[in-house]
């Protein structure tokens, strides 16, 4: 599955140790502005180095032309360029905008649940990854995702 990933989700996956699983199981692309926000601006920070490694080995693709647009707009443009299933973001205002435009999205936690549904990761890993995300996501998001996992177990 090909996805456009926004900066907040990429940083969260990197910080919580979920990124390697995500980028090895999905085709992740980021627009140029997201690359700047996650790698260039925080240069030298461990997370930035890890993301750069994924870009260097082709696990994350930087696509689209550099522009002066905000990251959300670049993510939208990249999605609209074709071939992508959805945009991944955890920013409520951006998700509202995607909703209004009928653009499909996943959040960080629902992306982990997707991998469980698709039998790409184990139940144990799913719970571990969502737990790792807990401090970076809203309580409502965390509980909804965990409830969904529990339903799946039943």
């Amino acid at each position: 599955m090909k996805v456009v990933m926004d900066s907040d989700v990429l940083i969260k996956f990197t910080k919580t140790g979920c990124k390697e699983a995500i980028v090895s199981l999905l085709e992740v692309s980021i627009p140029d502005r997201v690359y700047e926000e996650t790698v260039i601006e925080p240069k030298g920070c461990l997370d930035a180095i890890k993301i750069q490694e994924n870009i260097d080995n082709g696990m994350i693709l930087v696509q689209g032309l550099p522009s002066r647009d905000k990251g959300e707009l670049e993510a939208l443009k990249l999605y609209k360029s074709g071939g992508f299933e959805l945009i991944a973001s955890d920013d409520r205002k951006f998700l509202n905008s995607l909703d209004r435009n009928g653009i499909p999205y996943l959040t960080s936690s629902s992306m982990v649940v997707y991998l469980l549904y698709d039998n790409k990761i184990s139940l144990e890993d799913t719970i571990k990854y969502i737990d790792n995300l807990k401090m970076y996501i809203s309580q409502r998001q965390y509980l909804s995702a965990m409830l969904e996992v529990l339903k799946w177990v039943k």
Partner: protein
Amino acid sequence: MGEVMVSRNQSLNNVIDLMRKNGLDEEGAVKRIINLGIQDYVADLYKDGEISIREAAEILQLNFRQTFEILQKKVGGNVEEEQEIKALKLAKKLAERS
């Protein structure tokens, strides 16, 4: 940049005194207090979904990563329950299709 004069109440004086004990001068202490207030206000706007992280970064004059760290500490995340449920439904649909 303009200047603003404010009358000081006792709680403001108390905080400034504490900050002075920690090595800040009065101007530095007042700037620190204002900055924390701005961060709290912006964090509330983000929490309510009125602004995005990038808009918060513009207001705070910080880069994305610095803003992400501040908002993560003050708010955590701001995704609504209905947005998460909608995303989970899509996750299920996509997995069934693959």
